[in-house]
């Protein structure tokens, strides 16, 4: 698809994808700041800053962002990831300037009114408490904490409750000023517009913004893990859970395409982005056959967490009532060992590749999803990273899938969390 890419003098990268038939437009502004840029004591600050950027500042009073987008029948939201933070509006294409104005004000002029910061403290804590009510969140937080001792992937973007309780307004505001600048951001527009006209409007909205000194690079590197790490959580719950994570390289690594097919063969493929598949679950994969059809589990997933820095290859299993965690681990190990011994068949690999190709089409359903794809691709490598990756996946041979299973799915680089559901108090 035709895509126009240009950078403004202040460093803002602009990625325009015109879709002539589209009546809507999706505007995404992303910042190269995520929880990986935090340090202990200010965990969760990136996410809290994201919340504050809906509260006005500059030309926008509190409530204006809501009103402006709502009157257009638009949708908007924001997401804080480990690696980046992104804001979007999807609105009728004729209202492009509204989105550009909101985002240019958000970039440098957020108010951070102390009263509003305080009101938002309980909101982010409430968001965390809602997550804490879910055993799956507790397991995930435990797993990343176990697998990473040095690198900030140790904590999740929501941050620790004690940090959220103690953080002040000034460090949050300093965090904002440091990272929210045109030279640490990129803008994606997808939808019904003429690229030359859109570029002119983007310049008018963003060219006056001054760049900031580049943020210091995040230098923390996780040392090699020297043995399996395990944790057993015993808490009230309705089912046992098993989560395992193996260290894998960063997105840009040459093994990424084979690892993606490995995830597909073992656990099925649900697209590159987190929202596209909805509730759909793959059934044509080895772990579903072994664990779900085998009545040991009611849900299983295998995914490659695609990140800027070395990350994790994750298995998550919801156990069936009466199934034992030991037995599920044995079956998981056996399936991995089988793949390490013998490459998947050509038919199995072709099916996995076909799924990736089909999902790549499904993930381009509409301007909002295309905005997610371009923005997340740019955060990891380049706006066209997914297209390029699909091409590389197509060239992977079955032996390469076996080889990455041998290289990365090893016990000494694995962390395991077992959630033992305890009787729920009445």
């Amino acid at each position, binding site marked *: 698809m035709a895509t126009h890419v240009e950078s403004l003098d202040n460093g803002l990268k602009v990625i325009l994808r015109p*879709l002539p038939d*589209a*009546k809507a437009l999706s505007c995404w502004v992303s910042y190269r700041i995520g929880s990986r840029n935090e340090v202990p004591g200010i965990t969760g600050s990136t996410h809290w800053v994201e919340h504050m950027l809906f509260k006005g500042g500059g030309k926008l009073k*509190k*409530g204006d962002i*809501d*009103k402006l*987008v*709502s*009157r*257009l*029948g*638009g949708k908007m939201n924001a997401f804080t990831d480990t690696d980046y933070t992104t804001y979007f509006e999807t609105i*009728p294409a004729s209202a492009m300037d509204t989105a550009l104005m909101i985002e240019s004000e958000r970039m440098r002029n957020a108010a951070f009114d102390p009263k509003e910061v*305080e009101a*938002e*403290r*309980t*909101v*982010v*804590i*409430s968001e965390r*408490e*809602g997550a*804490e*009510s879910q055993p799956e969140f507790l397991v995930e937080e435990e797993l990343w904490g176990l697998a990473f001792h040095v690198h900030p992937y140790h904590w999740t973007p929501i941050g620790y409750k004690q940090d959220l309780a103690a953080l002040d307004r000034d460090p949050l505001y300093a965090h904002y000023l440091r990272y929210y600048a045109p030279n640490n951001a990129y803008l994606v527009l997808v939808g019904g517009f003429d690229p030359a006209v859109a570029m002119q409007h983007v310049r008018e909205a963003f060219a006056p913004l001054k760049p900031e000194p580049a943020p210091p690079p995040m230098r923390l590197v996780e040392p090699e893990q020297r043995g399996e790490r395990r944790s057993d959580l015993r*808490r*009230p719950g*309705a*089912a046992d859970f098993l989560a395992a994570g193996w260290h894998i390289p960063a997105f840009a690594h040459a093994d990424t395409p084979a690892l993606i097919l490995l995830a597909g063969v073992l656990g099925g493929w649900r697209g590159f982005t987190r929202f596209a*598949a909805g*509730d*759909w679950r*793959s*059934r*044509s994969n080895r772990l*579903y*056959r072994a664990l*779900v*059809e085998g*009545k040991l589990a*009611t849900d299983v997933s295998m995914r490659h967490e695609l990140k800027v820095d070395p990350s994790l290859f994750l298995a998550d299993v*919801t156990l*069936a*009532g009466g199934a034992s965690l030991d037995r599920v681990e044995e079956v998981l190990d056996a399936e991995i060992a089988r793949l390490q011994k013998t490459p998947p068949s050509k038919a199995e690999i072709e*099916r996995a590749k*076909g*799924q990736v*190709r*089909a*999902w790549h*089409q*499904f993930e*381009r*359903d*509409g301007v*909002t*999803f295309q905005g997610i794809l371009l923005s997340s691709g740019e955060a990891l490598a380049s706006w066209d990273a997914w297209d390029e990756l699909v091409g590389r996946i197509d060239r992977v041979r079955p032996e390469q899938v076996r080889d990455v299973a041998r290289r990365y799915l090893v016990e000494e680089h694995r962390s395991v969390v077992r959630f033992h559901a305890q009787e729920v*108090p*009445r």
Partner: protein
Amino acid sequence: MNLPDRTVLDNGAVLIAQALPSNPFVAFRGSVPAGMTSEEAPGVAEFLSHLLLSGTKRMSAGKLADRLEGIGATLEFRNSEEALVFQGRCTKETTAESVRLLIECLSRPAFPPREVERVRTELLNDLRLSLDETRYRAARRLSELVFPGNHPYGREPRGSEVRIRRTSRKTILEFHDAHVGPEGLILSIAGDVDRDLVEEAVAGPLSKLPATNEPPSPIPPPPAFRARSAWIPMPHKSQVDVAVGGPAVPRRHDDFYALYLANLLFGRIGLFGRLGHNLRDEQGLAYYAYSSLEARTAGGMWSISAGVNPANLERTIRGIREEIDRLRTDPFSLEEIADGKDNQVGSLIVSLERNAEVASELHRMEYYGLGMDFLERYADLVRELPEERVRQVARAYFDPDRASMVVAGPMGRIRVPL
């Protein structure tokens, strides 16, 4: 967008198609009247919906999954109060095969005993997990209070643990044979389609579906409502969920559009309307605090949902009551109503930007008999709503004396009325 093509096939099935060539794949959505309103044994419709991908008379579950995923297609079945709903995605080239597999799943399921037992395990686990969620518990109990007497709009879709254990393969088979067929079937399809593809790849196979199922029986109206409250202690949780709600209107009721707009202003627009402004934005009490309106064939329900720290429970309930009362003391302003109307008209573009969204809307238009020109008329329907009507329905339906409340979570000894 041109008006969609609507075809009634000889066997009674209705096919709606809309070409949207800019998104290069196909999304479809459909239903047959085999939901909870059709079941005599509670839980059988849910059981059925979980078993339709478990193999056909010609193909095992594994082979079916390999075929579908081998062509890169998705297919899902879901039970709902009124219908068995299905949806999927495929490419233009694989549309014929995808539709053929859909029809095979609907018309020739095998219900292998091993899969029946697997699904039984899955349903038992799902039920236990749901019952351990504060939000689910509050919402589920509220539905039971608003639609009492075991009405299908109110009851747990899975029945109960006992029901799941007792449901037999024979019961599922009989339910399927009686209710799944072309009678009442709707299939909408949107995306990279043209007339030839729809006729050959979709209408052709769909018209071969034998007409064997019973016509859908009328859905009973909900029983009389009496406001009540329920407290569900879940001391091991970190958050309390509050659900408040009461009866609303069926989808075709004269008050629907005014109430839809009132609900938008009350607890949805922007960051959750007036409710979100008070509870989240001003008081910082909750990450989510919003209202919902469900309008079905025979009845409806409005509800409020909020998740809060237990220490903020009383303030939250007080805040909800304040906002309900304010609908009388400080009715929606002209500006609020104008903003809401603009939102609804503008959302016609934004909420239909994806093939899947268009397929879903086409299905809704046919299901509720809104007419294929509904989207063309919608802006006028909204614009012509008198402001006083919106205020009046807000007062009439969001009535604290006609509202039930459920609280689920670690609320300790707190017991306060709405």
